[in-house]
């Protein structure tokens, strides 16, 4: 069943389409229902009404009919017009005329730009093979399927995923439990938000609302993270662990539940493989041991482990915070095992297997993964997961950072072209200094974006594209709701959408047949076929179509534990059809079959010698209330909320250094130094300092200049080790974002 989306959500804010239309009429404006684009175009985007006066995009209201945001809009969404009209927007394609890094460009036409990319790729393919091309795709974007399709048709496996987001959790959970089970918060009596930011990761989505509902029902909240954020303020228990030590905490929790037998014996016997080995293995990790490493009192570790194990309806919402440490796979596996052996897997209010939420058929997958070959697998330049575990759920992936490393080491071969759509390598991945060296050496660097980027000066070609507010495609389909993006205003410069770019490039390369001969309409229709509609049909539904939701069942072990992995062999995730506590697949590939502890490259307990010179732990916040990753600092209404890059430092740590609130300070690690403002922050571990990542961009309207990209700037990614033996998880990449620093008043 499906229906026209005219339903008003209960408890919703925002406006209905009728209300928005009346308001627009009153003000002599037009209203355009569409998706927000301020977290990047993703299938998770919020529904909004965009208002247009005299051809100018003026403001937004939340779409009350939207099942995901139900009318709410966060600060980023509200500030969209300033982003669209920013003086930082790129207006036309440009090619480099000066030296790399000099930033001298000349204007060229769109046609010419696409032609240059096609000619370069054709000649490089002939000379170096198709794998010489890598395209960066660090985050979930609506255009990623087109990137994959292009790479596959071209013959390259080098889709550059971040190595630090979501796929890491997916991998470790799926190779332990065959699924990445979600916390069923609405039925939980206890939720552990672990390395998770339930509020800033989509303030207008259901995360914060679910937390509120949990609190109202009297549910208990545990927050595991190094510093107090708004979610911690709502928690009953805060577990303030040192950055990067999650694996030690998880192993100690296993120690408690195993030794106190707080386990579901029947489940363990029937559905787990290797419990006896685990029992012996975890004896190395008592809470007293973990206290030294994590800084969390052993007493609290016992308390939280017991509370979780003995609360029948308890879930763990494991966040991105655990994906930035060399022991990330161990953390995630240990938590997966904890969920399973305590009887919280696929039971009401526990962590439940993901199942279709609605009757909506999935749009056709256009990634062409059916064309994957073992030859492509063999050519992965910097596998995000070991080759024998590729492809994974997103297809073949190389870790973004390792692509740059290959350019410098020429091992296993140097990538010759990097295309960077909507991403800024110098501030988005680790090892900024090496990334700049690689950009200097790289044969051909193409930046595709809507505004100028941090490392655009190193580009050979700059190709601007429309913001999603200037494009009438694609559609987004998620959570039983499908709607088209609609054009709010005409493009402000000489550019097209990123979808049109890949279609046109495909045609110019001679891959026209695989790219709908350049027709967006046909590309959309092709994907919509399983839903029995055309793109034109879908456009007739201003707020889209909502499909009936499906109810769920529990304890689906029999079926889920047999699930096939996406590897070319189609082998199941779980070789024994049981929870892989003892992971034979990892063992065969030469890794530890059981979760273990591995220190970050620099830490108080791992490198005590270093801590004399650098006594504080540095890490960074991945998510912010008012900026998306390393962009949007140029949007004045957002920048006003947080004018300067600030380092959170505990008042006691600041006092001994003579640092006062708002003082400019230097933060120095063994790898670089930043100049930022100090914010005295009573809610952070006194031995830890933290800063938001992604700072480089100025804001012209507020008279704020760009910061240097390397030393003396505020780019935290240059502060960390990228030692390939210490800084990465051996299986899932998960680059470390912990180091040791000293902070000094300037």
């Amino acid at each position, binding site marked *: 069943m499906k229906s026209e989306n005219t339903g008003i959500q209960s408890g919703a804010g925002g406006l209905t389409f009728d209300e928005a239309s009346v308001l627009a009429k009153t003000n002599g404006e037009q209203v355009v229902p569409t998706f927000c684009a301020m977290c990047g175009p993703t299938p998770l985007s919020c529904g909004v009404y965009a208002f247009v006066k005299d051809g100018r995009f003026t403001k937004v209201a939340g779409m009350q009919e939207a099942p995901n945001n139900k009318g709410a809009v966060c600060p980023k969404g509200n500030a969209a017009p300033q982003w669209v009209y920013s003086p930082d927007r790129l207006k036309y394609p440009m090619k480099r005329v000066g030296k790399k890094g000099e930033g001298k460009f000349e204007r060229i036409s769109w046609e010419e730009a696409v032609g240059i990319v096609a000619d370069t790729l054709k000649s490089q393919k002939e000379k170096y093979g198709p794998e010489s091309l890598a395209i960066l795709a660090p985050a979930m974007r609506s255009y990623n399927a087109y990137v994959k399709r292009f790479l596959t048709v071209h013959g390259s496996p080098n889709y550059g995923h971040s190595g630090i987001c979501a796929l890491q959790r997916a991998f470790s959970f799926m190779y332990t439990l065959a699924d990445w089970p979600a916390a069923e918060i609405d039925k939980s009596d206890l939720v552990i938000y672990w390395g998770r930011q339930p509020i800033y990761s989509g303030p207008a989505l259901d995360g914060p609302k679910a937390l509120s509902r949990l609190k109202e029902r009297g549910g208990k909240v545990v927050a595991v993270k190094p510093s107090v954020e708004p979610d911690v303020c709502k928690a009953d228990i805060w577990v303030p662990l040192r950055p990067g030590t999650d694996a030690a905490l998880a192993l100690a929790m296993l120690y408690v539940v195993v030794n106190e037998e707080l386990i579901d014996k029947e489940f363990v016997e029937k559905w787990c493989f290797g419990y006896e080995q685990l029992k012996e293995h975890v004896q190395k990790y008592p809470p007293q041991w973990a206290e030294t490493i994590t800084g969390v009192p052993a007493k609290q570790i016992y308390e939280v482990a017991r509370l979780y194990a003995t609360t029948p309806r308890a879930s763990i919402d494991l966040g991105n915070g655990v994906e930035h440490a060399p022991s990330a796979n161990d953390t995630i596996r240990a938590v997966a095992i904890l969920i399973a052996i305590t009887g919280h897997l696929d039971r009401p209010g526990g962590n439940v297997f993901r199942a279709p939420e609605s009757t909506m058929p999935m749009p056709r997958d256009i990634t062409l993964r059916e064309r994957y070959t073992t030859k492509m697998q063999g050519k992965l330049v910097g596998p995000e997961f070991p080759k024998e575990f590729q492809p994974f759920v997103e297809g073949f992936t190389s870790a973004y950072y390792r692509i740059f490393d290959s350019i410098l080491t020429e091992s296993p071969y140097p990538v010759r072209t990097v295309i960077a759509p909507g991403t800024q390598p110098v501030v988005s991945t680790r090892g900024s200094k090496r990334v700049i060296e690689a950009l200097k050496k790289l044969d051909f660097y193409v930046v595709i974006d809507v505004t100028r980027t941090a490392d655009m000066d190193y580009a050979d070609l700059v190709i601007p594209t429309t913001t999603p507010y200037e494009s009438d495609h694609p559609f987004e389909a998620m959570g039983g709701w499908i709607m088209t993006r609609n054009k709010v205003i005409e493009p402000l410069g000489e550019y097209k959408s990123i979808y049109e770019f890949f279609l046109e490039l495909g045609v110019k390369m001679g891959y026209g047949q695989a790219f709908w001969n350049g027709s967006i309409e046909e590309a959309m229709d092709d994907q919509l076929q399983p839903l029995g509609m055309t793109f034109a049909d879908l456009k007739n539904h201003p707020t889209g179509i909502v499909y009936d939701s499906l109810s769920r069942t529990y304890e689906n072990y029999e079926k889920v534990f047999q699930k096939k992995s996406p590897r070319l062999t189609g082998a199941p995730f779980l070789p024994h059809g049981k929870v892989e506590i003892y992971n034979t697949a990892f063992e065969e590939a030469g890794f530890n079959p059981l979760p273990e502890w591995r220190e970050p490259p620099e830490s108080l307990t791992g490198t005590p010698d270093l801590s004399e010179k650098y006594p504080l732990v540095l890490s960074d916040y991945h998510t912010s209330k008012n900026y998306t990753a390393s962009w949007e600092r140029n949007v004045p209404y957002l920048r006003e909320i947080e004018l300067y890059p600030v380092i959170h430092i505990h008042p006691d740590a600041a006092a001994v250094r003579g640092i006062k609130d708002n003082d400019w300070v230097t933060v120095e690690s063994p790898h670089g130094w930043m100049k930022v403002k100090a914010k005295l922050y009573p*809610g952070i571990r006194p031995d830890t300092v933290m800063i938001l990542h992604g700072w480089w961009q100025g804001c012209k309207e507020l008279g704020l200049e760009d910061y240097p990209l390397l030393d003396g700037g505020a780019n935290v990614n240059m502060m960390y080790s990228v030692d390939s033996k210490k800084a990465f998880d051996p299986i899932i990449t998960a680059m470390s974002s912990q180091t040791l620093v000293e902070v000094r008043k300037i």
Partner: protein
Amino acid sequence: MSGKYSIAFVQEHCIQCHGCEVACKTWRNVELGVKWRRIDTSWHGHYPDSKNVPVMVACLHCIDPACAEACPVGAIEKRASDGAVLVNRETCIGCKLCLKACPYHVPQFGADGKMQKCDLCLQETTVACTSPPCVATCPTKALVFVAEKSE
């Protein structure tokens, strides 16, 4: 029909997202450096029991507004018909006595030096049948538009 209006803040629902702050600025085209509504935080307790709680700073449209009392030229009035405390920007002389008088430090001064602040968005160009933009945008209903009918 006349009613008394206000915007209530439910602190325990606030997630400190600042959505209301920016909705206010975009919908009313508020100049840079000026905020008619903003979220501040206040810290309580000592580590590891430290928590921060949100504080909403915006005009409360007081029953007995101290700002109006303090204004030497009578530029501030509490409108009887709907309860909104409004500034007449024609008569305001920018002396900032209202700022001194306001216990919540609400009055704002931009480039023209005259007082500006929340006016409850009661005009039909802003409120579409339901509530002001700051209230409508809030994900967790921490802001509530209260319409209290009189008589």
